[in-house]
């Protein structure tokens, strides 16, 4: 069982998604199952280690915060591109992270990429330092504070 289905939930979710996206039929059930089982096997080889979700409420709160931030930063960057202010300064910011969990880091990468104006460039596994590029950089300390209190704290709460 576990050798063919190392991640039964992932496989099940993919089969369901396949059936919802196509017109459900026996043929698509077979095809979706093949995709789901295959993806489960591939995912097992990535060896991400077990992820323990500690708090769902923290994730829900995070989703709310991020949705708001995406709207706000979209507006901010759109305005910056239109006005093309001459004195806008972009630059690099280094942020030491306490977050170690790979799933948590993946989520943080999605958040940072999803909010225009910040780009995730590099994360050093050994030292935990994240290198960001910020489109409109006024004070690097502000960004360190923002990422650590707004996103990282909730992610640390959500993942063990």
């Amino acid at each position, binding site marked *: 069982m576990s050798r063919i289905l190392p991640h039964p939930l992932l496989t099940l979710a993919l089969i369901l998604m396949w059936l919802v996206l196509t017109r459900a039929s026996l043929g698509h059930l077979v095809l979706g199952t093949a995709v789901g089982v295959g993806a489960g096997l591939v995912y097992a080889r990535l060896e991400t280690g077990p992820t323990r979700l500690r708090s769902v409420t923290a994730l829900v709160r995070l989703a709310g915060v991020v949705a708001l931030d995406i709207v706000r930063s979209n507006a901010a960057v*759109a305005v910056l*591109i239109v006005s093309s202010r001459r004195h806008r300064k972009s630059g690099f910011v280094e942020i030491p992270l306490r977050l170690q969990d790979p799933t948590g880091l993946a989520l943080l990468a999605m958040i940072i*990429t999803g909010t225009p104006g910040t780009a995730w460039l*590099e994360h050093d596994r050994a030292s935990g330092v994240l290198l960001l590029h910020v489109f409109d950089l006024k004070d690097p300390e502000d960004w360190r504070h923002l990422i650590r209190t707004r996103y990282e704290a909730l992610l640390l709460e959500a993942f063990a």
Partner: protein
Amino acid sequence: MTGLDPLPLWLAVPVALFLVLGSTLTLLGTVGLVRLRSFYDRIHAPTLGTSWGAAAILIASLLSWSWLQDRAMVHEVVIGVFLLITTPVTMMLLGRTALVRDRAKGSPDVPPPAGSRSD
């Protein structure tokens, strides 16, 4: 006569608004990609199109098709989730490639790799 005729006005207005919002943001992102100077500035611009640009267009599609086909459509949600998951991969690939190249050239504007710092 278009396929959108059965759409009532109260639904057509938000659909149109979301479409215009999404396409404007995406257009702005591409304009930024052309106009900005440095590589690192440029990778910010297209994220307008992959975040709210795409989200607004998907919401418009979701609204109109849920009405026309008389059932909730999940395709848009799946597209949104996949966009959210896959853009960081491209972004990191491009960003790190630029970093490695600039470091190899000895560019002074780029911070050194985290392992090699003296402090």
